[in-house]
């Protein structure tokens, strides 16, 4: 049952035929584990850790499972999870509970992980894929703890445990088996990443492990029910996830075409050989002995709370796109802004902003209020592009931009009002990137002699040029109007970009008394 989301308005009818496996259909479902971007862990006061932290420095007594310690739910993690659920149109449950999942492993100091097995905090929902427009249904979203990290030093034969990650908050987002190709699976993860980053609930970084995927894959003949599924665990990049799905599809097909059955299994993936391998069969899958966690009272989320979170939600990518296009930006401009914006750093505890779109919004807002005339959107976009280009040239990310929006807004306004030429504006911009300053833009422009030449100064400059170019003047007076542009160029050069081309032309025409 394919549902194409309404906004694409697509006339495409879904064609399940895939050239890679023309006689088969595939069914894919994905479980995503996304680390919650909270400052503190989900059940303790210890700080969460990035990649760079020294091992075992962000560990509370609870994270180390010291006897006598107890969990305390971090409300910030709940806020961020609720934002995610709202963004996915998921049904947030008034009452949800926490359970313990038991297994013995050195990355699990308590011998159990706190999760939401029986009553997850949110059920249902859907995600519209950005590229294909396919709508993938969400089964449920649950809160849980992340595990510690282990590293085996084969040379010393020592297993090291780093508890920094132990007890960080995770959202497990489970999709329905609604994807039909490896590419759709990739599209799903990318679309989900964009949503998580936009609402600030996770930075969704697969390379650094803050987003991990388990995928369920099955194949079937067209018109037949889905086949036996296998789960591939711990896929750490979209590329390898797609390769793993293809590899698994081919493995299933070759089994079935030989007349064998596909056993239900949990499998891993070798990134080198591009093959999946058996971890365990259904028969010897562990019994996790789930038990309600008696230390954590049920999580009760009233509608007032949910509405408060909804009211403070950052804008979702699809909405931002529509808004920017309504402002008059082209699709291409919006694409550039959104790509740059999606690379912004996700703040802790839902702090958003700091991206280029917020910057652009601030620029336009700032100036709308100040000047009556319509804000020159094209101009601000041009200068924003210039800013991006100059940052790239300097090897900086947008986050490393040193020009605050107010200063940039003032700069744009000066160009728009003519008190500085476009060239001078760009020069001031470059200057500010290399010499950050909190002085107002007009003061700097003045100090750097970048202000547009006033009438008298322009007159003097033009007179100089006219008197030093008798040949050209003669030709112009004869009617060769093209030559006057050469004089304009001369004036511009002498002014070091401070002369306005139109104004210069007018002055020169007056001086030469063109026919």
């Amino acid at each position: 049952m394919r549902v194409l989301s309404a906004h694409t308005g697509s006339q495409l009818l879904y064609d399940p035929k895939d050239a890679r496996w023309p006689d088969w259909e595939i069914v894919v479902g994905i479980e995503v584990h996304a680390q919650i971007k909270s400052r503190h862990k989900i059940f303790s006061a210890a700080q969460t850790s990035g990649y760079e932290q020294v091992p075992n420095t962000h560990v509370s007594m609870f994270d180390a499972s010291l006897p006598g310690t107890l969990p305390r739910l971090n409300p910030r993690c709940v806020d961020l999870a609720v934002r995610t659920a709202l963004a996915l149109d998921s049904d947030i449950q008034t009452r949800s509970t926490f359970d313990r999942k038991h297994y013995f492993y050195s990355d699990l100091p308590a011998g159990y992980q706190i999760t939401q097995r029986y009553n997850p905090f949110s059920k249902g929902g859907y995600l519209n894929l950005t590229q294909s427009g396919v709508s993938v249904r969400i089964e449920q979203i649950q809160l849980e703890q992340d595990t510690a990290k282990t590293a085996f030093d084969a040379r010393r034969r020592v297993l090291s445990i780093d508890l920094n990650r132990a007890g960080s908050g995770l959202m497990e987002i489970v999709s329905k088996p609604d994807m039909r190709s490896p590419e759709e699976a990739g599209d799903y993860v990318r679309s989900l990443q964009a949503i998580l980053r936009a609402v600030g609930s996770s930075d969704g970084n697969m390379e650094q492990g803050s987003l991990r995927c388990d995928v369920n894959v099955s194949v079937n003949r067209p018109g037949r029910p889905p086949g036996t599924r296998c789960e591939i665990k711990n896929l750490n990049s979209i590329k390898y996830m797609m390769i793993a799905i293809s590899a698994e599809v081919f493995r299933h097909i070759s089994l079935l075409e030989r007349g064998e059955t596909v056993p239900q299994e949990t499998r891993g993936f070798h990134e080198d050989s591009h093959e999946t391998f058996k971890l365990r069969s259904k028969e010897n899958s562990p019994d996790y002995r789930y038990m309600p966690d008696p230390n954590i009272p049920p999580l009760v989320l009233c509608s007032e709370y949910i509405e408060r979170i909804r009211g403070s939600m950052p804008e979702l990518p699809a909405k931002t796109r529509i808004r920017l296009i309504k402002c008059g930006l082209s699709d291409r401009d919006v694409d550039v802004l959104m790509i740059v914006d999606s690379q912004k750093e996700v703040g802790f505890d839902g702090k958003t902003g700091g991206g280029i779109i917020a910057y652009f919004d601030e620029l336009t807002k700032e100036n709308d209020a100040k000047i009556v005339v319509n804000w020159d959107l094209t101009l601000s976009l041009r200068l924003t592009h210039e800013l991006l280009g100059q940052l790239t040239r300097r090897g900086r990310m947008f986050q490393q931009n040193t020009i605050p929006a107010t200063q940039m807004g003032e700069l744009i306004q000066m160009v728009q009002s003519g008190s500085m030429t476009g060239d001078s504006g760009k020069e001031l911009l470059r200057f500010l990137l290399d010499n950050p300053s909190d002085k107002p833009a007009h003061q700097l422009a003045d100090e750097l002699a970048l202000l547009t030449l006033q009438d008298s100064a322009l007159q003097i400059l033009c007179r100089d040029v006219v008197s030093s170019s008798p040949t050209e003047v003669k030709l112009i007076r004869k009617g060769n109007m093209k030559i006057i542009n050469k004089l304009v160029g001369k004036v511009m050069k002498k002014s070091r970009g401070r002369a306005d081309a139109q104004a210069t032309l007018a002055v020169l025409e007056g001086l030469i008394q063109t026919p």
Partner: protein
Amino acid sequence: MNIGDKDNICTKDMPTTCSSAMLADYWSPFDATVVDLLRQSGAGIIGKANCDEFGMGSLNVHSIYGPVVNPAFPTDDIRSAGGSSGGSAAAVAAGLCNAALGTDTGGSVRLPASYCGVVGLKPSYGMLSRWGVVSFADSLDCVGVLAKDVDIAHRVFNTLSKYDGQDSTSASPETREKAQRACEEHMQSWRSRRDLAGLRIGVPQEYFPASLSPASVDGVREMLRALRERGATLVPVSLPNTPYALSAYYVLASAEASSNLARYDGVQYGSYIAITAMCLHVRPTPHQIGTPASTYALSRTQGFGREVKKRILLGTYALSADAFDNYFLQAQRLRNLIRQDFRDVFLVPDPLLLSHSPASVDGVHALVHPSAVQTAPPLPDTNVISEGDSLGAYVQDILTVPASLAGLPAVSVPARGKNKQGPVGVSIVGQWGCEAMILEIARVIEGSVA
């Protein structure tokens, strides 16, 4: 005031071993909230008291330190102090301290109090913080107080009864206030009077099983007579689901224990058993050698005592996918029925319920029943504890587990002075948050003994 501390309540200046080889050299880096509150109020913690390993036991015989001898008996009559807070009760009975902290999961404060002839208070669940209390079964564990008399128990309780944000199951200030109002409202009619006219005492018929020893029956009968003579009304009541309490309790408590004790696996706690350990009952099979699973299995086999291992196995089974519905969930349903039994007989409404259900007018203020089926039994020779004996030990808890399952406050007071058969306690059980009420009744009983 000098106060003893059970060895499963964390102290940073003394070891906290839970009487287990697994934690034999464990020092907690922090004080439990209850210890902290005691120290802040000027009390001195004089030492750590022996207990059953991780609080599991009714006779205080499951301990790396050996059994606790009951000081209420002559030296030639070696009796159990009861468990699991046997060391705490014995320390108070022997006069080593004014009071001692214990923990009560299914009767572990009230039973030793009864055996040793001291006062034992198990407060309402959530009243005293569990931060720093080594978990046995979190949904049942309560810090309790053992004391020489009711006044001391009350004072210690008042010092410790504070909301603690570090324990998510700690009752909120609002709930405490609501409970206190309800409690005082229902004490008004009789507390200020010289007699107890207006006080309604329920006598639950299920708490007088055939196995009850004559000493226990006599103790409670004398106390009921005394209460009636003071003007209280005795009301026979029924808590029909009581017979299921013991089974439900052992399923739930063991299930939670199997979970809570999973962290003791030889990696952080206990001795990491290398494959060379040959002193074990279970020899590793060759394919297990060197696997993490073998490390856990061997370390846990070595580090835990018999009783703890038995309960972990029972609890692990109860949580397994095949048994969960029939054991764990079934036990939870029984627990709810038992809670409802109590609500049905109390005059005071349950402050933990959102909806205010009006209690029946023919309800009672509190229940009075024997604390134990018998007086302190002779200490079994540790070498000959058989399977049969341990079942006998479980039956000791039959009168105490219902209040634990319902999370209700209960206090055991010595019913008679020392006599030949030894001390025996009478329990008073009240609605959630009615500590002040049951302690007031306990004071009356205490007065009638003296």
